[in-house]
């Protein structure tokens, strides 16, 4: 049996009648040991325990029992992607008890929301893999329906940083509207591949400019309304003020010419003016 540096043991127990599933993330070839514990109601020795990968039944399993608890174990080595998948242990009684181990390569995280940029800007697309050791990354862009690998040597437009790390960055400079669409980052593991999509939207500056001009026009209208309303009310006030001034000048003239004899009519006139 070949020995690998990253070998480890998985020990999972099942105690219920509901089928139990366990997801296991695996990057590199390993020694695997899967264990299922069943609680049996009937006679321990007469139960039938099987292990399956898909439809294929597996050999080299070990089973033993203590009291009413049944232990079953399957040991194997995962070396390449063909051995990834789902492995299940079955206990056949009146009701079947089942446990499933799902082996997958780690998932790659990109960005859920589309990245919005403008013509002429630069953008950095980031993909991360959280619990991974160093990886091989490649980037693909969308050409109609197919994925096209991105060639970094062709021109200065594309730059990829961090091809052998937990995180990869694709920098695109001098964006144009043709650059919009989907981009994929793919991580290659010894045991398989994992990819994620990042959406890029490239807008022209005219797109936000239209609402800006609309709002600016609205402000101009509001300012014009405010100032026009004020000149209107001031004109009205000036008319009434002019009227009062005119009548006061009339009064002074009559004061000069009439003297004291016409007191009574003058006072009445004053009162009607001040109303």
């Amino acid at each position, binding site marked *: 049996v070949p020995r690998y540096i990253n070998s480890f043991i998985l020990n999972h127990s099942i105690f219920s009648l509901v089928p139990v599933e366990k997801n296991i993330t695996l990057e590199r070839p390993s020694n695997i040991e899967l264990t299922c514990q069943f609680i049996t109601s009937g006679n321990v020795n007469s139960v039938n325990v099987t292990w399956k990968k898909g439809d294929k039944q597996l050999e080299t399993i070990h089973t033993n029992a203590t009291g009413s608890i049944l232990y079953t174990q399957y040991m194997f080595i995962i070396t390449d992607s063909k051995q990834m998948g789902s492995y299940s242990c079955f206990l056949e009684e009146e009701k079947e008890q089942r446990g499933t181990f799902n082996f997958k390569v780690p998932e790659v995280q990109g960005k859920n*929301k589309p990245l*919005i*940029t*403008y013509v002429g*800007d630069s953008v*950095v697309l980031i993909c991360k893999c959280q619990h991974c050791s160093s990886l091989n990354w490649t980037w693909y862009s969308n050409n109609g329906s197919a994925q096209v690998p991105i060639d970094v040597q062709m021109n200065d437009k594309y730059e990829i940083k961090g091809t052998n790390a937990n995180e990869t960055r694709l920098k695109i400079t001098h964006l144009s509207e043709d650059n919009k669409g989907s981009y994929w980052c793919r991580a290659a593991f010894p045991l398989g591949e994992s990819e994620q999509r990042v959406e890029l939207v490239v*807008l022209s*500056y005219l*797109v*936000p*400019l239209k*609402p*800006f001009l609309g*709002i*600016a026009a609205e*402000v101009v209208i*509001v*300012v014009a309304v*405010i*100032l026009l309303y*004020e000149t209107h009310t001031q004109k009205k006030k000036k008319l009434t003020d002019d009227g009062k001034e005119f009548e006061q000048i009339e009064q002074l003239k009559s004061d000069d010419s009439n003297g004291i004899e016409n007191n009574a009519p003058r006072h009445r006139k004053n009162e009607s003016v001040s109303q």
Partner: protein
Amino acid sequence: MAHRAEPPDGGWGWMVVLSAFFQSALVFGVLRSFGVFFVELVAAFEEQAARVSWIASIGIAVQQFGSPVGSALSTKYGPRPVVMAGGILAASGMLLASLATTLTHLYLSIGLLSGSGWALTFTPTLACLSRYFSRRRSLATGLALTGVGLSSFAFAPLFQWLVSLYAWRGALLLVSALSLHLVACGALLRPLSLMEDPVVGGPGAQLTSLLHHGPFLRYTVALTLINTGYFIPYIHLIAHLQDLDWDPLSAAFLVSVVAISDLVGRVASGWLGDAVPGPVARLLMLWTTLTGVSLALLPVAHTPTALMALAVAYGFTSGALTPVAFSVLPELVGTGRIYCGLGLVQMVESIGGLLGAPLSGYLRDVTGNYTASFVVAGSFLLAGSGILMTLPHFCSLASTSKPQDRIREAVETKVSLSKEEPEED
């Protein structure tokens, strides 16, 4: 135009309140919600967080230190053209920022240009508001300042939505369009001439007379001390809650509760300031003392209910002191000199605001928790309220000064100044 003896206390004044409300929202609401752009800009320019934070810091600094310029220009030309020009500057800054290709462009466009625009809008508007009201001055100021709190609620989600649609460039362009409404707010500031205006003279004379005015200088020192302590909880409350192992959702909920009690405090204090007779400075001292006490007690509280109660008390009292702080000034220097007075106060008290947060952070780093910083903040507030007690007429029951008193005082100041400088005669 005839000079009025008394401020209108209503009428067009309520339109000025509306204008001040939207201006507080568009200046401080935008500044407070700038954090949304902060995240985007760090990613877009691949710069460190500290260098990107300078954008907002420069903007705030220019707004505060530029306040006297806005005030002086308003004294000479009236608030309307100054505020409208300020609105255009602020909007232009944001527009140029949307075209930026380096961080320096943002320092100059948002920091310098928009900051100058904001300097020309906020102080002249509040000063104009003080001239339109005398009996209901505190209420009008309180209502206008609620614009700051409400806009913080509204703008952060709005900016986030704009960024998700148009990225930071388009969002800044639309914030520029939003800032254009400052011009409309400026249009609402109808000029008002009061009887004491011709007596107090131009901006140069006013600034000189203010710098010789003892109560004004003491008031400025008091406000600087208050400002040093005032902003600390806004910055450090969430961090303090994290130290006490609060989960982020409850902490955010507490901050919202503080914001709501701040709003209620502003309006309630505004109403109270007008209803209670006597100098408004006494109410300012009351609210400042209570804020200082609640801050100093904050580290002592460990149970959630006690913390919640103290936080609500801090929110209410700190909100309550803002409209009253603005109302004290016209009583001290008269509405004739209000533009220059407010500009000078804003400039000096900003020193307190700039020093407060780093000082508190330093105390936290040295002592390991926020107890010292909260206690020091509270003591700054208490010191400020102590100085307030030295203001004139503090213990008397006399109502606010009549126009004849203000004119007499202005004439006496001008006469004494011209006596000091015989060469000018």
